């Protein structure tokens, strides 16, 4: 399949995963999308509230919300991070790049790169060797995955050589196949999103 055909497959399958899909003009546009998504949502829930701290109004789940908005962007290059800083200047958004262990109570959004996207299942292959990437993609309420169109794969089996490549870069490796938000059906087999990790997953497709 050609790249365009694979993009069409992703477009067709994304809604049922569920994944929100956005085709960005360039990196700056991709980052702007993540910022917009963050600004549209309510403030993040605080899952580890401390006695005596001040919080915002209660969420729909009756949990306290945070007074600030946070975007975690582990794994972006200095240049990419600078673009994000530009986009959030003048907003109430606070950027996090590392030390996410200190933010386990939650943050609004994470922006991370995926090494590849499997079209057939809309699965992001995420190099998660960095602990910050693992926490970023789990603790954020909204996970935004950046994917270059040239990395689109057709089927899951086609991820084999990428897997072997990731494994053979030396030393330990941690790779995640991520397909949609964190989900469960453990209570009465009713589907529910965000049981431990993201409530939403967004994929932003970029040209190379």
């Amino acid at each position, binding site marked *: 399949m050609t790249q365009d055909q694979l993009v069409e497959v992703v477009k067709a399958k994304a809604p049922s995963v569920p994944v929100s899909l956005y085709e960005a003009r360039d990196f700056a546009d991709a980052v702007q999308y993540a910022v917009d998504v963050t600004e549209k949502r309510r403030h993040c829930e605080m899952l580890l509230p401390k006695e005596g701290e001040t919080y915002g109004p209660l969420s729909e789940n009756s949990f306290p919300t945070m007074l600030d908005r946070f975007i975690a962007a582990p794994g972006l290059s200095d240049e990419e991070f600078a673009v994000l800083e530009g986009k959030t200047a003048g907003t109430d958004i606070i950027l996090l790049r590392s030390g996410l262990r200190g933010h386990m109570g939650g943050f609004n959004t994470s922006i991370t790169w995926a090494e590849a996207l499997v079209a057939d299942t809309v699965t992001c292959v995420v190099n998660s060797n960095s602990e910050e990437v693992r926490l970023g993609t789990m603790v954020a309420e909204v996970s935004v995955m950046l994917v270059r169109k040239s990395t689109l794969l057709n089927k899951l089996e086609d991820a084999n050589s990428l897997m072997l490549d990731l*494994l053979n870069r030396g030393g330990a490796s941690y790779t995640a196949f991520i397909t949609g938000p964190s989900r469960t059906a453990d209570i009465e087999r009713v589907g529910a999103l965000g049981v431990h990790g993201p409530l939403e997953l967004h994929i932003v497709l970029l040209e190379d």
Partner: protein
Amino acid sequence: MADAKNMKEYHSQIQEALDDKFLRATLDKFAVEYKANRTRIFEGMDVDGLIKQVADIKDNAAQHMMELFEQFKTEAEKRGVHVHLASTGAEANRIIARIAKENNCHNIIKSKSMTAEEIHLNTALEKEGCRVVETDLGEWIIQLRHEGPSHMVMPAIHLSRYQVADLFTDVTKVQQDREDIQKLVKVARKELRIEYVKADMGISGANFAVAEAGLIGTATNEGNLRLVTTMPRVHVVLAGLEKLIPTVADALKVLQVLPRNATAQAITSYITWIAGANECATGPNGRKEMHIVFLDNGRLKIAQDPAFKDILRCVRCGACANVCPVYRLIGGHKMGYVYIGAVGLALTYLYHGADKARALVQNCIGCESCKNVCSAGIDLPRITREIRARLVKAEGNNPAGSVMSMVMKDRDRFHSLLKFIKFSQKPLTVKGGRFIRHLPAVLMGGDQSFRQLPALAPKSFRQLFNGVVNNPAQPRFRVAIFSGCAQDFIYPEQLVAAVRLLNKHGVHVEFPLGQTCCGLPLDMMGQRDTSIQVSSQNVNAFEAGKYDAIITLCASCTGHLKNSYPELLKDSPDQYRAGIFVSKVMDFTSFVYNKLGLRADDFVKSNEKVTYHSPCHMRDLGVTEEPRALLNMVADYVPAAEEDTCCGFGGTFSVKFPELSAEIGKKKLKNSEDTGASLVVTDCPGCVMQIRGVATANDSQLKVEHISELLARHMK
């Protein structure tokens, strides 16, 4: 967790489950939805081909378990992991407790691991003073309730939202919404977050241990495993040796089947691949302290046992429970000890011993549904029968089994006994002599009042045959009939109808008198030696080479002859004869439709509304189109809901577990009645006995016939 020591205790546990209305409604709904969802998610894929590949991959791995272990160990150690091998559950528990102690860990979080359940790891760690918290939502719920899982994939499927809400209210000391499941899930999101922060050790299971890279692969939907393996400074993986697999490509292949079969998902939300001690800010030198404990607990021995080795193919998808008519009625707590469903019956015996399994392994109806849905094509009913045979061998026979074996191994004695019963049953018959009146439960081994049992026919088929057969002078085909007991002695009219139809269409029919019971009831009772003896009698009763086909009208006999005879008579002097015999066995509808080629022109079609029950052993043999095509030629065929679900007969099963047989039978009756048809047709005398018996006992107007009777009535 079903841990009944004897059948009496087990029956009372079963009754508890049958009285649980929520459980019944949930599992009913699940059974129907699962089948539909599974069909949808596999659409356009070569399912059988994939299952075969999974079986091959896992078989190959099981035969090279220790080599794969060594390779895995070398690769993992290269990446800074400590690899352990525990020969028993107790040893694995000791190793993990020692790791906790040496690393000064007290707060342990876990992601889902059936292997940890197998060895009761939590209890062992708690005894050492550790605090263990499950993070998978379902596992957390049952941990808080001090229960075991009732399903391998959905451990809390037996609980309602109200039970969960009340539990969460109790745990959080805050009144929780009792209706809104979304909000209940968020309670877990919030309550468990602090546990990830506090924990100093994380324990996970593994779906794959990939030898070529010392790589652990896991499939989860919640993503809790990613936090369990990231936040704490120590990570321990517990994996059965059967999780070893040679390559990443193998794992990706298995992943095409596992989530589809488990939850009808193309893939789970997270597949996590961990090779080596990864970055960890709180670990020694910024790295995780990582241990992998492989568990033997009998697996190496099982790999060398031809009768049991296939069980190591199991990928824990849970599908064998999802399609099991017994699981549907009683749930996992009563259909397993730790492992549940069909594979649970076997694994309880293999991993937890005969004591825990003795009563449990009786609870398979033999419908073969699990075998046909298994991710790795494991013939689970065969393994269950094998376990029954080994229990009988190891522990001596039970009274019912001994009597059965004594009677059945000698055909003359068996048939004389039937003759005796026929004469002596007269005072007990009702409804024109065709049914036996209800007998005291003690005489029947259980309350059989849910169905009216048939009386023996005044004349057996073997007595009637010569007067009925009218062989053509120049036959198109020569066939012999294998009757089975039910049609020979209870329902000879079903065979008489078949002979009439076959003769009419130019088929020469013979009935060799040396034949006897097919042996399936014996095998179901663990009477392996006698079962082999009758198999041998049967293959020697037929000059198989003389016939174009050996025709059967009993689905269960057909299945047993075709699937089990080659195995039972392997390495016996009858092996060769058995091969020819089996190759000739053909069910009636396949012969009539495919070989004889009868079509609409050969019948007079009526407007009678008729529905169908597909016998389990017909489906198992892949005979599904033929009977329906024939029905459409002679009547107005209306499909029933769950036409492909067991009727609840299961031969000796319905005597051992009348309470279960009754429930399944009633459902079948209702589904058939709901079509508005006046007649339900099937192609097995066992199913006729069950459905007709249940219909009669419930004063239903629904008639039940064998397809041969319907076809014969509509011959031109």
